[in-house]
């Protein structure tokens, strides 16, 4: 269980004068549920994008499932699933077609494609709606389909950027139930960002709080709470390390992206 699947070493990304991720070093074990917390602009999304090989680091390195994100990007891509914050399934196709296209792009053997898709639909409780166009789906169904799509090839690591943003509490619980099932059945490592402290508290093995592109605190939920002394909640921990309450310094772009996602899912 203690074998490391994600090794981040001094990972840095600069945008012109701004350093979004500043010499980040972190290690995640195989099968772990790891939550990255931080206010908007802390560097969470930039970190996930670099790990998913969508953004080149300015310096530093990371290994995902043993492959370098800078030199072995294609191997990394084969080993991961990625669910971006925005809606990433195609509304003008059916759920089945959305899954079929990824089955083909990830080279699943032709004979297995159908069975694997049926299994994924069943797993995410979408079998009855497989033939419907996705733009008729509810927000929770869309998220479940996105997770089904990014785990069809059984990735070792699943990256999720704010997986439950814009969902009502019931849909949120359903998404989490399916994510935890993935870990139980396939040992998938879950690496996700979130704004919801109770979500981090309820599901994460370990948490890192990011602030100004650096890890401000790292540990299990209990360890972090204990680090401030008795009787502190995760919220206190967050305020202490992130030097702010959640959402206080969100950029216009971040807020607008999040609202758009909420609108589309909600």
């Amino acid at each position: 269980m203690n074998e490391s699947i994600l090794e981040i070493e001094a990972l840095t990304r600069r945008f012109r004068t701004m350093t979004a991720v500043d010499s980040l070093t972190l290690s995640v074990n195989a099968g772990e549920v790891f939550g990255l917390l931080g206010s908007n602009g802390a560097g969470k999304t930039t970190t996930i994008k670099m790990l998913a090989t969508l953004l080149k680091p300015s310096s530093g390195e990371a290994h995902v499932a043993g492959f370098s994100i800078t030199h072995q990007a294609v191997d990394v891509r084969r080993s991961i699933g990625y669910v971006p914050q925005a809606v990433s399934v195609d509304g003008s196709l059916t759920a089945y077609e959305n899954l079929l296209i990824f089955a083909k792009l990830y080279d699943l053997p032709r004979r297995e494609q159908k069975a694997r898709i049926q299994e994924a639909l069943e797993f995410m409780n979408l079998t009855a709606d497989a033939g419907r166009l996705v733009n008729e789906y509810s927000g929770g169904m869309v998220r479940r389909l996105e997770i089904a799509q990014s785990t069809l090839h059984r990735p070792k690591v699943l990256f999720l950027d704010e997986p439950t943003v814009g969902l009502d509490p019931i849909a949120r619980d359903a998404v989490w139930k399916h994510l935890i099932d993935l870990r139980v059945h396939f040992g998938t490592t879950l690496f996700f960002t979130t704004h919801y402290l109770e979500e981090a508290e309820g599901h994460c093995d370990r948490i890192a709080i990011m602030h100004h592109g650096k890890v401000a605190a790292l540990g299990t939920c209990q360890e972090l709470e204990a680090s401030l002394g008795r009787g502190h909640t995760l919220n206190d921990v967050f305020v202490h390390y992130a030097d702010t309450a959640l959402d206080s310094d969100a950029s216009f772009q971040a807020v607008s992206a999040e609202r758009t996602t909420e609108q589309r899912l909600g």
Partner: protein
Amino acid sequence: MINNLIHPLSGFAGKTFVITEFEVRKLRHDFTELITRALQPALWLLIFGQVFSRGGAMHTGTVPYLDFIAPGILAQSVLFVAIFYGINVIWERDLGIVQKFLASPTPRAALVLGKGFSAGIRSFSQTVIVYGLSLALGVKLNWSPLALLNVLVIVILAATLFSTFSLVIACIVKTRERFMGVGQVLTMPLFFASNAIYPTAIMPGWLQTISHLNPLTYVVDALRTCMLAGSASTFGLDHDYAVMLLTTTILVLTGARLYPRLAT
């Protein structure tokens, strides 16, 4: 040795067709686009074409004016639709679709070329309408199977070329507002600095030079050669194909390099 060479190539072609297949499946769910596409060429042929063909307003030699512009209008309508293709890519970027495809192991060039081909398949509807109207207006068409096949290939190639050009622009400007501006600025010069609705021979020298650098000119020349009965090519069909293929290849490679910028 040969296997090492064939495997990546067949893999690349396979992925390209997967992207095309799913773009075409979208049409099956909603085919209204195919109908709206047909309207513009109909207007150009029926109104512009009919007016300018009266009394020999335009000197097109031995070829009647309507015959002359029928292939030009087909090329123009392929261009006008394809040049705005990039807006879809920006839309897919504003959602998270582009990011998800880029996080998959699919070769970037296959993502770009697959989308280009799908624009080509969408252009079939314009080809059908232009042929139908040409027939009704008495244009002397070449119905030999080889000629028809050539027209289909040229239309697909032209749509791939211009939609990939559009995708390259989308990767650079990244927002819908800027893209619409650039698209508008590009279409008319491309159209007017070509041989689509008048022969290059009647152009002033400077415009002739520009038209020779314009890929649309070679698309129109190729279409005119293959669509019309007894029409000779200005540049030679081989030359036309070479220009189209080379331009498309350069654009696909450029698009493959720039496409990842949409995920940042």
